[in-house]
């Protein structure tokens, strides 16, 4: 017999034998496949409340576990079957933090395509709920730094500083964060492409506009990298943003 969502069961708890005798009873034949039971007593029922406290996590209560979200999810289908939105919601509601923590290495892989939210027949904002779960876990210090969170923070800081983002600076700043040595000019402290370490594919890609003599494009982007586009009258608004983020525990 098949086990649906086999990825949710630890391999050592699945028992399959030609001849299987359990407690003196011979259960061979069709019934040779058994999932060993387990007892769980460390759950935290307050965890779901944490998720529900934020406006985007409220709908977690509406989920009736039909698994349409998982069936639609491209990350589940094409990348890693351990990524299972339905299951994450289930665990969060039961407050099984241990189990959630075991899956923390795939939970951040959500690509925010919102197929889950779109198709949910119960109107759960699945993607938002999952992000709320991750946030609640991060608040408790249960998840380590993962790449997408680092990038989210990096991005948000850039927005907070200037009000706008700039593609080149974002790209090179991120490359630097990944451990490459990016060369910066000594005065403005802005990264200079082509000097220093850059991944090979990116180097080739940046050379393309040069080769096709697309000077306008290069000048525009170089100008933006040197003089970061910024929103006027930003400082007062920035303080309010900073205050709000501090309240939510997003800034330290």
């Amino acid at each position, binding site marked *: 017999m098949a086990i649906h969502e086999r990825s949710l069961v630890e391999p050592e708890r699945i028992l399959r034998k030609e001849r299987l005798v359990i407690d003196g009873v011979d259960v061979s034949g069709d019934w040779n496949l058994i999932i060993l039971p387990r007892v769980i007593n460390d759950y935290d029922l307050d965890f779901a409340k944490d998720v529900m406290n934020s406006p985007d996590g409220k709908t977690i209560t509406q989920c009736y576990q039909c698994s349409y979200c998982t069936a639609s999810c491209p990350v589940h289908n094409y990348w890693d079957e351990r990524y299972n939105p339905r299951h994450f919601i289930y665990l969060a509601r039961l407050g099984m933090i241990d189990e959630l923590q075991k899956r923390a290495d795939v939970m951040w*892989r959500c690509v925010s395509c919102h197929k889950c939210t779109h198709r949910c027949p119960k109107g759960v904002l699945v993607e938002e709920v999952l992000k709320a779960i991750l946030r609640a876990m991060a608040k408790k210090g249960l998840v380590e730094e993962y790449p997408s969170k680092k990038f989210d923070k990096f991005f948000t800081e850039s927005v907070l500083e200037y009000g706008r983002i700039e593609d080149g600076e974002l790209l090179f700043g991120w490359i630097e964060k990944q451990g490459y040595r990016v060369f910066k000019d000594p005065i403005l402290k802005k990264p200079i492409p082509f000097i220093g370490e850059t991944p090979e594919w990116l180097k080739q890609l940046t050379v393309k*506009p040069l080769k096709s003599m697309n000077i306008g494009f290069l000048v525009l982007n170089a100008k933006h990298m040197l003089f970061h586009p910024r929103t006027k009258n930003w400082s007062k608004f920035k303080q309010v943003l900073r205050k709000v983020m501090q309240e939510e525990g997003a800034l330290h």
Partner: protein
Amino acid sequence: MGVIGKRVAYYPGCSLEGAARSYDVSTRIVAKELGLELDYLEDYNCCGAMESKNVTFMGTMLLNARNMSLARRQGHNVIVAPCNGCSFSLQRAEYFLETDRAVYDRVNALLREGGVDPLDQIPQTYHILEWFYHEAGPQKVKERTRKPLRGLKVANYYGCLYTRPHFYARTYAHAGGQDEEARPRKRETADDDEHPYYMNALLEAAGATSVEFEPMHTQCCGGPHSLSDELVSEKFVMMILQTAKRNGADIIATECPLCHASLEMYRHRLMMKGVPDVDVPAAYFTQLLGLAFGYSVGDVKLKDNLSDPIPVLKKLGLA
């Protein structure tokens, strides 16, 4: 027709003023040709995209509410955004402001504190494709076409957030399990939620042929992770490009600068790795429409595209 209005607030978003300049330029050209008017949103800020909302809920609401407030000050009830991410963010803010009174009051109080006019009314956000389709439509495109894109086989790539999720984009008259006031009503102008066709219709009116591209036309390109989780993005882009190529597409038409950048970046990487069937270039649908309206390659900035669609277009005698 006539639901959205001929004159709207135009929220370009950060990337359209930088790396995706070609989209901005060609959008203005197409709007002008179709007799529509874009009112540039002065001094806007970033919408927070897909990233900020994972860090802070209220902060992202505020970022978008500020843009909405700017639109209100310029006298608009409608904002049009050409980027899937921007339109998603604005529509998301719209949804929470409309359905959650506590959020609305808090946001207004904080806006006042930050020196921005509070929102007297919540403006609606549409994607620019919706706007083109409903205010001009394929008929108008046909009338304006001077150089039909005859023989060009296009894979129309909509990306994930154009029709999704229906709660924000309001593409589907689905009640869900939420209470009455939180239920979104379908927009009159909304595209089909699982099988969007507005871009197909516009480009076909301009003479191009659409190739079969389901289900990849709304498959995620891995955009939000394109810098932080490269392997996922690379695989998703590979699936999209290979589907397009194997269905005979000459070019992929995009309508989002993030998808476009992701497709171009990873196309390059995949080609360097020697993955087969990934050499389909990408162009914004406005660039293709611009070409059909008789503008030159330079006018619609086709040289800015890193995937270089010019050879394909030249071969078909379109550029």
